[in-house]
Structure formats: structure tokens, C-alpha cells
């Protein structure tokens, strides 16, 4: 499953994306994006609404096609990587299937891969243990809190042990306490499974706490304006949030974002859905 040594987890070259190309109302969502993510990195994409960070994630996921440029995931073209289930994905809404039990939700990607029942079940329970929800295995999604639902979604995304996890504001709908708890949990889970993560957020502390690198983006047209290394080390706990180094990085990211005018595009171009 994992790529040969030296292969980049994600490689983006000369990427651009134009919505409604050649028609009135064309929107340049992204221009000239180059980004290389090495295995084991945790990279956050941060920027104001409309900077194309979600679009970039969707391009990596091959949920939409680039206008120009190429995306390699695990050394393969994005489409091939998607077909091979080389990544797992989590969205802002947990998006659990309400008619499936928690275990069955986690089993979904394995079912689609054609695993047999016993193997699926065993892996799902293993994943639920990882996200500390074993005792809720037979519950249904609506019986869980928002944070628990999001943990199930993470378990589902990682069930097939993909080397890459793509997350689109997964904690955006959670309250602050739950959110910080989930961040610590996410770091633990990723460390235990040695998963590379690309994480879209608009929270500066969240980006700094989680990431090895923070990619700062600006709108109109969406582009990368800065990449900030967050050298806080691999061991990050609740106390990390109160260190001088943490504050220094938060300030650095905030200053990088300062010069950027928020886009006043309505509707938010990240919400623009292409005709499929």
C-alpha cells in the first residue's frame, strides 16, 4: 500500500483551476500552485474564504479536474490514486450514513473494496478502538455527539489504512473544547498510523498546533503566498498551546495572513459546485 521510499505523498505542479471557464462569470479559483508534501508531514492550508483551499484539496482528491497542471498522489496521477483508494477523506459534516450502525459506517470503504465480512468487522473494531469509541460500536450516528460522529468519520477515512488523509475543516462545526480535544486525538491517531495529512482550516491556532507546515493562501485569484515551518516537534500536548514557540508561530501565520483582503465573492467560490 505505501509508496516506495523517496516518493512524495502529494506533488502539485503548475496547478490552476477556473470555474465556468470561457463563460461570463468565470472564476479563477487557483493559479500557479506548486506544492510538495513528503510522507509523514502534516500540512495545513489556511486562508480566508474564497482562497481556493478547499478546491485545492478537492483537486488532490480528484473530486474535480484541474484546468492546467498536474497532481500526483503517492507518485501516481490523482485519478489513479483515487481509484486505488490511496487516500481517505473527512469533511466538515461527518457525513455518516444514518441507516448504518457506527461499525457499519466504518466498514463502508472496506465493503466497497470487496473485503469479506469477518475481516471488515475486525478492522472496523480495531479502528473504533483507535478513536476510543469501542463501546459505541452498535450505536447509530444520531445517538452520538458531533465530536463522536467526527471521530467515526476519521475512523472510516482511515479504515483501509490509506497513507494519506485529506481533511476539509473537519472540526469546523465543533465547540472550542471538543475541537482542542479532537486536535490532540488526531495527532495521536496520525502518529500511531503514520498517516500524512492535508488539512484545510481557517483557524490559525488549529493550523499551528497540528501542522509541520502551514500553507498560507490568498484569494482572487487563489494562490499560495507563504509557507511557514512550524518546528514545534512531534510531541504536542495541551501544554504546547501555552509555550512561547506556539505563540510565536501563531503570530507569524497571522502576519502572513494580514496583508490579505478577504474575498467578497458571493457565493463563496468554494461552494461553487461544478455541473457534473
Amino acid at each position, binding site marked *: 500500500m505505501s509508496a516506495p521510499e523517496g516518493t512524495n505523498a502529494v506533488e502539485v505542479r503548475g496547478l490552476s483551476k477556473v470555474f465556468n471557464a470561457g463563460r461570463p462569470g468565470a472564476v479563477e479559483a487557483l493559479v500557479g500552485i506548486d506544492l510538495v508534501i513528503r510522507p509523514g508531514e502534516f500540512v495545513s492550508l489556511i486562508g480566508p474564504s474564497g482562497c481556493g483551499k478547499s478546491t485545492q484539496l478537492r483537486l488532490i482528491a480528484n*473530486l474535480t479536474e484541474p484546468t492546467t497542471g498536474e497532481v500526483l498522489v503517492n507518485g501516481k496521477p490523482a485519478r489513479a490514486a483515487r481509484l486505488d483508494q490511496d487516500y*481517505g*477523506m473527512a469533511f466538515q459534516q461527518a457525513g455518516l450514513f*444514518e441507516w448504518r450502525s457506527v461499525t457499519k459506517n466504518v466498514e463502508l470503504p472496506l465493503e*466497497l473494496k470487496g473485503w469479506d465480512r469477518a475481516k471488515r468487522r475486525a478492522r472496523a473494531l480495531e479502528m473504533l478502538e483507535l478513536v476510543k469509541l469501542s463501546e459505541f460500536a452498535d450505536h*447509530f450516528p444520531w445517538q452520538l455527539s458531533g465530536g463522536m460522529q467526527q471521530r467515526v468519520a476519521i475512523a472510516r477515512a482511515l479504515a483501509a489504512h490509506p497513507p494519506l488523509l485529506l481533511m476539509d475543516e473537519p472540526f469546523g462545526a465543533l465547540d472550542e473544547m471538543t475541537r482542542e480535544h479532537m486536535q490532540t486525538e488526531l495527532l495521536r491517531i496520525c502518529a500511531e498510523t503514520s498517516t500524512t495529512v492535508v488539512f484545510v482550516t481557517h483557524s490559525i491556532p488549529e493550523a499551528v498546533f497540528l501542522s509541520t507546515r502551514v500553507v498560507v493562501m490568498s484569494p482572487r485569484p487563489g494562490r499560495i503566498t507563504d509557507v511557514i515551518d512550524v518546528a514545534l516537534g512531534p510531541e504536542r500536548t495541551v501544554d504546547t498551546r501555552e509555550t512561547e514557540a506556539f505563540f510565536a508561530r501563531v503570530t507569524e501565520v497571522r502576519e502572513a495572513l494580514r496583508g490579505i483582503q478577504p474575498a467578497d465573492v458571493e457565493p463563496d467560490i468554494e461552494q461553487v459546485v461544478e455541473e457534473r
Partner: protein
Amino acid sequence: MLALLLVVGVWELYKLIGPQDGGTIFGWTILPRANDTAMPHVWEMLSRYAQPENRASDTPILIVVLQGAWFTFRIALTGLALGTAVGLGLAVLMARFKVVERGLLPWLVLSQTVPLIALAPLVVSWGGRLHVGEFEWPRWLSAAVLGAFLAFFPVAVGTLKGLTSTPLASLELMASYAASWRQTLFKLRFPAALPYMVPALKLAATASVVGVIVAEISTGLAGGVGRLIIEYAREATSDPAKVFTAVFGAAALGLVMYAIVTIIDLVGMRNRPREAAE
């Protein structure tokens, strides 16, 4: 139950105060006649169930109506199954290919404007000419087809709406797992469409009963409750309570079909959150 008592109350009240020969307003007869021939007492209808169908027989009319209802029930159930299968098939086709939806949907709507009574003899004659090997087209099958003709429409429209209302995020999730269209259909679209399909099926269940009863009447198929209604209606002047026994039989039949779908609903949705019930 309370509603039922209310209806009985209103009926008897009208009998009490209503004009015996109908009310006339500006020369038009508008108010129904309240005499015993047009509106028999409720207790007369009920006691009629215990009496035999006619002088030549000694089985109570209750048994006769029940037998007729059972006969019609089986045909209606066949019609509902047939209609549901066709409706689901059409809905899947329309959900899969936009072209099919555009081309087919107007025709489906048009099909429902054709009067069933006009269609019934045609179906019977087509069926009669159909011979596949040993298979002979039975007459009751024509009635089932007509039931299906009414039943498939709500199923097709409701299911189509359900299949195309799948949340985009869920569809993207399936795409991120490289799920095939078929996998997406059965693991996501259909389960997500269930809340849309249940009301459609309830409509279809009652529609299939109506279809079969109309078919029985217009094709002269004997043995069912539709036939009984027509026969008893002829005796309305001499035995006014009789026709109501058959009418209630038909109504009860519709309720039973509705109940069957409700049970399917409860079983299918047992694990879903129930906001409406709270």
C-alpha cells in the same frame, strides 16, 4: 376511531334534519335525500352483514364480502408488486440518464390522464391474444395490470425524487472511495431515498386497490369486491343497506394495503432518527 364515530354522528344527524326528498336551491337539487333508501341507518348497514346475501343462500353477507375482498386483495397486491417493480425500474433509469428523464417523464404524466375505464377492455383483449408457450393470460391478471398502471406512477416519481436528492457530500464521499455507480445506488442512493419512497408506496397501495376495483367493474371480472358493489347497487331501492356492506369492504381493503406499507416503513426505518415522533 374518534373520527369514525364523528362520521357516523354526522350521517345520522343529517338523516334527522335533512330534507326527505333532497334540498332544492334555485331549482337545483343540491342537498342529498335523507330518506331510508338513499341514506340507510348505520345500524341497518351493520346488521345487514349478518343476514344472507339473498333468499337462495344462507351464508351471511359478511362472509361474501370478506371473500370478495380477499379475492380483490390478492389481485391488488400483485398489481402493487408489479407497479412497484416497474416504478423502481423507471426511476433508476431516469436517475441514471438525464435524457431518459427528459424524454420519459412527460409520457408518464400523460399515461395517468388516460381514463382507466377506457383502458380496461384494451388490456383484457391484449392479454387474451397473448400466448407464450403454455402460458394462458388469466382474466384476473388484466385487473392486476390495471392496478399496477395506477400504482407505478407515484412510485416512479417519488423514487426519482429520492434518488436525485442524495446529499452532495455523501456522493463525494462515495467518489473518494472510487465506488461504482451501482455501489453508490445500492449503498447510498436507495437507503437515502427511503423517506421519499414510503409516502409514494402508500399512495401506490391505495391506488392499486382503486385500479383493481375499477378494472373488476369495467371488465366484468367476477369474484371481487368491485363486482359486488355493482351487483348490490342494482338492488339499492329494495335493499339499500346492501351496497354499503360492499363499499365498506372496499374501503377496509384499501386500509389493509396501507397498513402493509406502514409496516414496511416501520421495519425499514427502525434505525433512523424519528423527529416527527417526538
